[in-house]
């Protein structure tokens, strides 16, 4: 249907347009690693949260635990959960497309799920109420717009589109249930991940280069590490050592 000259011309024009727009291609690079905890895990026992203020909470979930510090004691070395790991430096002025799928934040058993998560600037945020009780979602951002609204009924979701535009890590709390809190990290790129139960993280699709990774934890602060990735997988671990 098309001759080789036409295809070549179209390809060159497309490449030129993409290059001019500054939008980077997705690459096959992967950075993996774990977040290590060094210290006395006994100082950070998880407590059961008293939700007796609202019996509807217990009705949804009989028991919820504190989420501030969750240490995985089963691995050697011990690892830390709910750490937000992202690329801090090394991407230059490259721009990356905003995902069309929204990030979903759920309230269930009077607890936010996920407890820590990242979102790309401009990406939509959907907030759901899975509890048969009233929740009041209150954003406490440092740079982005503040939001403060209620979801009084089960299965409600935010009617107003919420997008966050500035790079920021901030807390969201519930004004009805004081123990409820979660943290959102906003990034201009999609290279972030939160450590799971095994304390590991995976960042995918960044271009070749040398990067500074930043690990953020709500109790222990920040740690950074440098990593170089070129056409493959790189591994790097970050360590939190409270009191060191």
């Amino acid at each position, binding site marked *: 249907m098309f001759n080789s000259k036409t295809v070549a011309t179209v390809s060159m024009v497309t490449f030129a347009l993409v290059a001019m727009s500054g939008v980077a291609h997705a690459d096959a690079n992967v950075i993996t690693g774990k977040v290590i905890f060094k210290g006395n895990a006994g100082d950070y026992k998880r*407590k059961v949260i*008293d939700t*007796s203020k609202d019996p509807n909470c217990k009705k949804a979930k009989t028991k919820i635990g504190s989420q*501030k510090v969750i240490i995985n004691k089963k691995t050697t070395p011990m690892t830390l959960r709910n750490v937000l790991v992202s690329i801090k430096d090394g991407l230059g002025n490259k721009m990356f497309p905003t995902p069309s799928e929204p990030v979903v934040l759920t309230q269930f058993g009077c607890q936010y799920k996920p407890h820590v998560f990242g979102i790309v600037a401009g990406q939509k945020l959907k907030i759901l109420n899975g509890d048969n009780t009233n929740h009041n979602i209150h954003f406490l951002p440092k740079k982005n717009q503040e939001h403060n609204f209620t979801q009084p009924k089960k299965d409600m979701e935010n009617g107003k589109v919420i997008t966050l535009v500035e790079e920021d890590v901030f807390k969201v709390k519930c*004004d*009805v*249930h004081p123990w409820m809190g979660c943290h959102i990290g906003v990034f201009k790129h999609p290279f972030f991940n939160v450590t799971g139960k095994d304390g590991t993280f995976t960042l995918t699709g960044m271009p070749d280069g040398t990067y500074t990774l930043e690990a953020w934890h709500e109790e222990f602060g920040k740690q950074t590490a440098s990593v170089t990735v070129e056409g493959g997988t790189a591994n790097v671990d970050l360590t939190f050592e409270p009191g060191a």
Partner: protein
Amino acid sequence: MKAPSLCLLVILAFCALGEGTALAQVVPDIPDVEITGEYGPFLPTLASKDGGEVDQLISILHWFMAVLFVGWGIFFVYCLVRFRQREGHQAKYEPIKAKVSKYGEIAVAGFEVALLVGLSMPIWASVKNDRPTEADNPFRVRVIAEQFQWNFHYPGADGVFGKTGAEFVDTAENPAGIDPNDPGGQDDVVKGELHIPVDRPIIADLSSKDVIHSFFLPVMRVKQDTIPGMRIPVWFEATMTGIFEIACAQLCGNNHYSMKALMYVQSEQEVEDWIKKASIVEEFDEDDLD
């Protein structure tokens, strides 16, 4: 039927309708919890030793208010009829300067002041001055208000409240801000439920972490503001066991309506057992559903 009689009839009908009528939705919909007592448009169940005096005061004041309301209502209707616009009558715009009406107004005002001050001050003085002493073996609890939750701090088995400080406050794990290094606070209990013994004086020390709230126990006839920076004691004595509602009676923010808690009035042994059980810090098992 003449207008004043009709007016009185309407008032009496409202009184009769409300007496003893329980409103189903006064108490919030709490699953698996049955609130004790009757909650109608008038005073709820009385479960307090000294609440009767408050009821008596409220009752007397309302009856006097009813007398004043009816009296002034009759006078109002009389004026409407007597001084209505009609032929041959010219309106007068100067006020009446008769001494009778002047002294009458002063007498009514004085009577109302005597009612409020003379009846309420002795009860208020009793509330403030006749606090239970240590000889009465009072049960002590601290009540810490915050938007939009009540926290109840019990001293535990040692009877000593642990030291507290704002720097130790964690809304999820340590809402009362107990110093984790203070031995006196090791067995302290902080919960969102109030458990108190029946037939024993209770002293509750009220404080607030943020704004002004009001600790309201309808069945105990207790209502006292909690003010940031102050510790205000209230006392009462429960006379019947049951589960009762605690509310916030001071508009404290956009979710003020949800600032409720439950008060369990139980036997000494039941309260002791509950505190003992609650003082065991429950560790969240990693295998629990998360």
